[in-house]
């Protein structure tokens, strides 16, 4: 059984008991435990069921590479699936549940899949469910989804908060083992600003477990000394529980800091996403031990050799009482020695190398441990727990020589440097034959804008596996990084290292070398996605020669662990099947993040109230307290209408329209873009931007203008007011304020840099209130506004006036066809002016109106709206706006575009018309106008479309604007307009101006 040892455990505090639950069962552990170590201490070796076959699975590793021990952690708004028990620190009240089993972990119905595994080979789904095609969506997929899958998706809204942090460093070091600490120390001593991230809660990595002495000190003491020196350096920042998740272009790195996952108290942000810019990045992530591929290597109790000693040394936990070690290298002997030192039984070490091991093997023998060279595991015995192993010769087909009883198999197939972060941004790898591993190719680093490398690897990440090599390599990397970041680097400190020498491993990709099909079909490569040696071999046999294809066909390495344990073993099997060398087959692509990060961390502050900016006009709060119904317009909120108690939206809109037509209405027009164009060449500049002439506008006057892009298509419209000789104010559409500002700046900065013009966006400096309706003048006069008669302030003029004691600028412009004053007022006084107008208008029956009434009012007048009548393919001529296109000007943006034949000479352009239905019905928005016959695809021909359609309360009937082939030349004709789900309706082509055709009402 697995249990807590009587003593030891360098990371736990035996004085601090912690209670937690696993599948509802109350268990105890210690402060400093991981969930995995605490479960092992409670003899809970089986921690989940596998993805496809629902096989019992136990913890394999002790770190972030763990594929099996995935848990649902927390409840409700704090539930999160697929969390690795090896990375989850224990806290009081932690609630964990295992995944992918029904009805229980111990007894699982889905395990029948395992009995059927012969019928679920690689590509099974592709082959089986292809036919009949219609069955996939309705029958196969729901069943497959029910049977497979890991954690459950959370059901409740995330209860936690998250944040981002921007950080900068000369040298960023990822990984806080001895390599990372040494590299950080050298870079720090050179004067660089250093940021050091470690994903676990502890500094030092593997060194304190693996032993060796540095500068005469035990590794643990040395680590403490390094940390103390680094902490004392003002230019060095150290972060625990912060993973370097991904390396991107230009030295951009994401760090993933977990702030409360290890605490009972969940207040404060849960995760913090560090968005780091680093001049140089040192990757010191260490290496990952590889499993060995033998039959039954997924039975709970089969673990990585390093993990077995981690649990003993770090947490005082024995994963079992009798540990068989199986290895192809010297390092795993350390596990046997550590177990023996704890008083556990090690019945045998099976060393697949024919010649056996080196100095460590001697130590093992000296400790009385039986060591067998050239031997292998033929098969693991047991189902939910290891009960023993059958031993065979490594060379051969696996005939059992003897059976050894045990409850743990500690396996080691060698080590793979963690090259993920090196590879994220394009760093290349080379195959190291001696150590049977891919390591970074120092000549092919990921390069920055200067063509030079910006990532270095240090220590085991760089392929240095011995402590002495690690320390030398890390010092070199730290200094090289500082130097590349522009610091003068001294000579690296040399350290005295005492360690046991090791002899090379022998590459062992299959155990035994000639394993039969039965064995290979029980030999797991990818625990998390249930991919076996036989699956990869089948893929190769079926022609999936590329490692990327084999990966996708078998799903090897595609689970949440991204194949940290399985990729190298899998591609070795693939290369052997293909008869190619491993480097020829190559690896799959390493992509960020290194391990999964929470969606919350990525979103950061971008959720809830601050999901996206909401723009408010200075009068926003008044609208809110007066029953507004909002409409999102870009990031703005604009009033759609103001329904009174019991009033429908439709009725409110109609009332607002009639109020404007008959009395007076107030519109918050603050969102309209306001750009000041100023300079000696301002007139010339505007003549180039607008289709019509602006330079001859007189100060004090306004003119409607159109703006096109280079292709001649309409992009914006609005009223331009000339303020003085050198100054114009250009109104843009609400959506156009920023884009037209940018459009102007671009032309000024890239093409017409010789023009003396400056543009300022003053959209937000002013509130703008439209006072509209036949009683508008009387209303302003009540507020004591002087000199606003037709003569003193005529239509299309502007003037500065004091309204209700507030100095304003009034534009006599109208988008409704009524008498209209648009009043511009400094933003901080806009609300006061609005309230003054609202109160003074009481006697006139004033009402605020929203965007829908605005739209109806303009449609009744046949005024176009950018985005309704235009869609980026419409030229002004299509909208009968030829009058607004100057023929006198040499050039303007869009002029040449509009002269192209298919625009200028095409009689079939869809052009603006009005449409009316005989019974006054309202046409559907976006409906098409049918033409005779079908096109070559058998679809009905079209000859136009509806661009705006409303019920006009003024005219008491439906009105519509449309683009129709041939345009107004077809006035009087009847056309057919589509309706959804029913027959088309007949509509008559009319002028698009439905109300006050001569424009008398606005000009009073």
């Amino acid at each position, binding site marked *: 059984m697995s249990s807590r040892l009587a003593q030891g455990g360098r990371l736990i505090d035996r004085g601090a008991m912690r209670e937690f639950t696993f599948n509802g069962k109350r268990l105890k552990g210690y402060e400093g435990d991981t969930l995995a170590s605490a479960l092992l201490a409670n003899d809970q070796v089986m921690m989940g069921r596998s993805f496809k076959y629902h096989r019992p699975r136990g913890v394999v590793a002790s770190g972030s590479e763990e594929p099996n021990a995935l848990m649902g952690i927390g409840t409700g708004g704090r539930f999160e699936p697929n969390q690795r028990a090896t990375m989850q620190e224990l806290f009081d009240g932690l609630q964990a549940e295992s995944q992918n089993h029904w009805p229980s972990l111990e007894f699982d119905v889905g395990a029948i899949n395992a009995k059927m595994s012969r019928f679920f080979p690689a590509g099974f789904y592709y082959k089986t469910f292809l036919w009949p095609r219609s069955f996939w969506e309705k029958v196969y997929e729901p069943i497959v989804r029910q049977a497979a899958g890991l954690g459950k998706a959370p059901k409740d809204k995330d209860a936690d908060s998250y*944040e981002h942090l921007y950080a900068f460093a000369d040298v960023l070091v990822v990984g806080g083992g001895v390599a990372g600490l040494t590299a950080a120390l050298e870079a720090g001593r050179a004067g660089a600003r250093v940021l050091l991230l470690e994903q676990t809660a502890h500094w030092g990595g593997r060194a304190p477990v693996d032993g060796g002495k540095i500068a005469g000190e035990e590794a643990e003491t040395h680590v403490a000394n390094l940390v103390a020196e680094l902490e004392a350096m003002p230019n060095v920042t150290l972060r625990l529980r912060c993973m370097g998740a991904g390396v991107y272009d230009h030295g951009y790195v994401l760090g993933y800091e977990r702030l409360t996952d290890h605490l009972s108290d969940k207040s404060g942000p849960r995760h913090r996403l560090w968005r780091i810019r680093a001049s140089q990045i040192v990757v010191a992530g260490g290496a990952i031990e590889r499993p060995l591929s033998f039959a039954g290597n997924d039975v709970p109790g089969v673990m990585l050799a390093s993990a077995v000693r981690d649990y003993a040394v770090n947490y005082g936990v024995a994963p079992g009482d009798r540990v068989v070690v199986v290895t192809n290298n010297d390092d795993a002997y350390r596990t046997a020695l550590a177990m023996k030192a704890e008083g556990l039984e090690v019945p045998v070490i099976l060393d697949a190398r024919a010649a056996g091991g080196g100095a460590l093997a001697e130590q093992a023998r000296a400790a009385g441990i039986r060591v067998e060279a050239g031997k292998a595991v033929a098969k693991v015995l047991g189902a939910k727990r290891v009960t023993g192993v059958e031993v065979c010769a490594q060379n051969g087909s696996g005939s059992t020589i003897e059976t050894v009883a045990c409850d743990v198999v500690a396996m080691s197939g060698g080590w793979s440097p963690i090259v993920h972060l090196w590879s994220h941004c394009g760093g290349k790898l080379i195959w190291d034959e001696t150590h049977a591993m891919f390591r970074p190719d120092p000549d092919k680093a990921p390069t920055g804008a200067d063509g030079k490398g910006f990532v270095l690897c240090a220590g085991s990440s760089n392929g240095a596996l011995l402590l002495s090599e690690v320390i030398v390599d890390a010092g070199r990397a730290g200094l090289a990084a500082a130097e590349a970041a522009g610091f003068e680097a001294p000579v690296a400190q040399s350290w005295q290292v005492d360690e046991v020498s090791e002899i090379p491993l022998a590459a062992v990709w299959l155990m035994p070398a000639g394993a039969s099909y039965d064995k290979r079909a029980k030999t797991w490569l990818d625990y998390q996605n249930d991919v076996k040696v036989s699956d990869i071999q089948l893929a190769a046999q079926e022609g999936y020669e590329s490692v990327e294809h084999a990966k996708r066909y078998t799903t090897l390495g595609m689970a949440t662990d991204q194949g940290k344990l399985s990729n190298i073993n899998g591609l070795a099997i693939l290369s052997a099947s293909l008869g190619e060398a491993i480097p020829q087959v190559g690896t799959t692509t390493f992509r960020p993040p290194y391990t999964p990060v929470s969606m919350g961390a990525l979103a950061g502050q971008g959720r809830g109230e601050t999901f996206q900016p909401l723009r408010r006009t200075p009068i926003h709060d008044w609208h809110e307290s007066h029953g507004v119904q909002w409409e999102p317009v870009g990031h703005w909120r604009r009033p759609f209408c103001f329904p009174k108690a019991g009033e429908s939206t439709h009725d409110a809109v109609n009332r607002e329209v009639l109020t404007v037509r008959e009395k007076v209405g107030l519109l918050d027009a603050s969102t309209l873009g306001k750009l000041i164009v100023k300079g000696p060449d301002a007139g010339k500049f505007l003549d180039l931007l607008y289709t019509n002439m602006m330079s001859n506008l007189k100060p004090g006057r306004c003119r409607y203008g159109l703006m096109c892009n280079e292709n001649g298509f309409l992009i914006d419209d609005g009223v331009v007011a000339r303020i003085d000789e050198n100054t114009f104010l250009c109104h843009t559409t609400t959506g156009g304020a920023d884009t037209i500002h940018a459009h102007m700046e671009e032309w000024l900065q890239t093409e017409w840099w010789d023009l003396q013009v*400056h543009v300022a966006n003053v959209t937000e400096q002013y509130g703008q209130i439209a006072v509209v309706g036949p009683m508008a003048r009387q209303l302003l006069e009540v507020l004591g506004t002087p000199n606003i008669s037709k003569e003193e302030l005529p239509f299309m003029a502007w003037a500065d006036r004091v309204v209700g004691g507030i100095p304003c600028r009034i534009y006599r412009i109208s988008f409704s066809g009524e008498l209209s004053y648009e009043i511009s007022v400094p933003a901080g006084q806009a609300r006061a002016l609005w309230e003054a107008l609202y109160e003074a208008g009481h006697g006139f029956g004033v009402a605020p109106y929203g965007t829908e009434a605005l739209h109806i009012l303009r449609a009744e007048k046949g005024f176009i709206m950018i985005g309704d009548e235009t869609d980026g393919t419409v030229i002004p001529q299509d909208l009968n706006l030829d009058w607004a296109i100057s023929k006198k000007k040499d050039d303007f943006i869009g002029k040449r575009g509009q002269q192209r034949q298919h625009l200028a000479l095409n009689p079939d352009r869809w052009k603006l018309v009005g449409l009316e239905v005989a019974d006054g019905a309202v046409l559907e928005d976006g409906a098409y106008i049918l033409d005779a016959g079908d096109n070559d695809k058998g679809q009905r021909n079209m000859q136009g479309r509806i661009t705006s359609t409303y019920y006009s309360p003024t005219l008491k009937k439906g009105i519509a604007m449309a683009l129709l082939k041939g345009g107004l030349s077809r006035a009087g004709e009847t056309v057919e307009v589509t309706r959804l789900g029913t027959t088309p309706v007949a509509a008559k082509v009319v002028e698009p101006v439905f109300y006050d055709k001569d424009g008398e009402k606005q000009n009073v």
Partner: protein
Amino acid sequence: MSDLSGPAPVLALGGAAFDGYVRVAEEPLRAMFTLRGDLSAKALKNAATGLAAVDMPGQGQVALNGEHCIAWMSPDELLVMTPWDEHAKALGQLDATLTDPALNYTDVSQARALFSLSGPDGLVREVAAKLAPVDLSPAAFPAGSFRRSRIGQVSAAIWMPAPGRIEVVCFRSVADYVFTLLRDAARPGSEVGLFG
């Protein structure tokens, strides 16, 4: 519209404040003018220095004297600030100095919302660093530094008038968004300790 009589202008958020691990506060109105033109033009320099009574700032800098300041915005743009009660006087001065139409000023006082972060220097810096992609370390961002950047998803300028204080200006329409972000970033329990 240079005459600003009438009711006193109201702030976007009415002077909102939050006492977190640093204090976040909407600041009273300040007169702000965008000056555009050749920054080496004597008239432009005179206009700016005449208002703020400080020297011209270098690139990425703000020259300060209390609430008076000149901030470098771009190779042809300055932002000049004065206390609000000097607004009318400043307009008159600018009109008188900037007679060359190639030099240009715009009153943007009310287009903006102004916030301050105040407290221990390192903490003030890190609250800003949660929202703006700016190197806010004391070495890279000493007092007198000025950056046009963003806060969350919107444009903002941030500067450091003095140790322990950062000021942020954004567009008025997004005042509530920016205040909410700053407030949340300053919530006790979310301290980072990035700057000592």
